[in-house]
């Protein structure tokens, strides 16, 4: 290899590579969750820049708390718990400056509002909803009040158990179930309304034509 010449003194940076070698390390596995953390942060904040901040803080906190993570337990659920704690703390900080409805109030209001849902008859809506367009579904999810949005999202999209969600949200399992339940029913009502509206509109257009 006469063509190759030496270039400069060797800087000693041995630690640099420790974390990047060896698949299956804490860091690698933690980073494998970044997409679902980011998506969930997007649903929580509904703002890409805030979502990025939240995810970045989550990884910083994970680094600082790594000693408290028990190997063998669910790393993904642990990271989601940090994400939600961070989001809650931020909401609390913001609430000091602005008056916002607390989640209990929202929950009670929703309970009253959707109490009438039970006497809805079984309709072909259930079938119709299957044709809901993706953007409409996403919009309806994003339009749910925060506590219901996160519960339904964590259960139906991110596939966490009730117990895992309860730990993340720091609420009892019963509350998790009732939030999922109400969130789903609100979503059902919103999607049904949108469907009915569209059907009426297309009928009207047909008659005009």
């Amino acid at each position, binding site marked *: *290899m006469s063509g*190759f010449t030496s270039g400069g003194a060797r*800087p000693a940076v041995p630690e640099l590579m420790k974390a990047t070698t060896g698949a299956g390390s804490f860091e*690698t596995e933690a980073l494998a969750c970044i997409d679902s953390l*980011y998506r969930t942060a997007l649903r929580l904040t509904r703002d890409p820049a805030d979502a990025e*901040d939240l995810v970045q803080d989550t990884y*910083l906190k994970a680094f600082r708390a790594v000693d408290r993570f028990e190997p063998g337990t669910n790393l993904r659920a642990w990271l989601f718990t940090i994400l939600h704690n961070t989001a809650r703390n931020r909401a609390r900080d913001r609430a000091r400056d602005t008056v916002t409805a607390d989640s209990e109030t929202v929950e009670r209001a929703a309970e009253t509002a959707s109490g009438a849902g039970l006497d809805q*008859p079984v309709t072909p809506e259930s079938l119709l909803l299957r044709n809901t367009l993706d953007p409409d579904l996403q919009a309806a999810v994003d339009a749910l009040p925060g506590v219901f949005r996160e519960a339904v999202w964590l259960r*139906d999209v991110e596939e966490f158990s009730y117990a895992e969600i309860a730990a993340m949200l720091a609420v009892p399992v019963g509350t998790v179930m009732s939030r999922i339940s109400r969130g789903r029913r609100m979503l*059902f009502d919103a999607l049904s309304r949108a469907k009915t509206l569209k059907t009426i509109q297309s009928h009207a257009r047909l008659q005009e034509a």
Partner: protein
Amino acid sequence: MPDCKKLDPLVTPYVDGELDAPSRAEVDAHAHVCPPCHSRIAAEQTVRELLVARRATLQKDCAPAALRARCGAAVEKGVVPLFPGSRVKKGYDPFSLRARLRPLALAAALVVVVGGAFLYQLTDRSARVMAAELVADHIKCFGVNRLLGTSQSAALVEGSMASSFGWRVQLPARPQQIGLELVGARPCLYGEGRIAHIMYRHNGRPVSVFMLPRTARPDEVVDVMGHEAAIWSAGNRTFVLVAREPREEIQRVASFVHAALH
């Protein structure tokens, strides 16, 4: 319907398939005779099934590459590198962050510099600066994307080099001669996507071969950030082989690739 209240808390676990058989039968029996509860269960079930069926599209958002790189540094080093384009965080005390920066942080920051058109211009500058950028990319590609275990065929990589870079390359026919195994190629977002990145394993450790088109520079081996970067030029292209191995080993592998790459 006296059972409705009692069954209410069972509806959601029923829909989620979390009930044991007796409770499940209880709900079934009740729903059979109670239209309101039946419709409530149907509504929940419809929404759950819809969400589950659309999981893939609901999960389409991916973390941006720059965020991924920052989080990689955060979880590995506990610092968020301050580099151009990074967001200034609200309520974040820069002094406390700076206080955490150890001497290694500068190198850590290099690891996560991503994107940016500047690399291509950097190729006009010193070999060390160019090598540092490529080492950073080498670490990022292998470390962040967990690619070491994959293996693409030579034909696939050659095809993507031809279509992405107009580079009709023949990869070394028998890389195993020197202990190399092909991992694959990635469209490198570095240097406006004009730098090709082909990845190998060498005795299980990551090796990168970068190809920079329309560039020539003198042959040399540079060590930077604990890695060795062997640089050579051929046919108005510059090649940089990056790995974390002893210099003699790098020179041996580089001269093999140099000779076997057509």
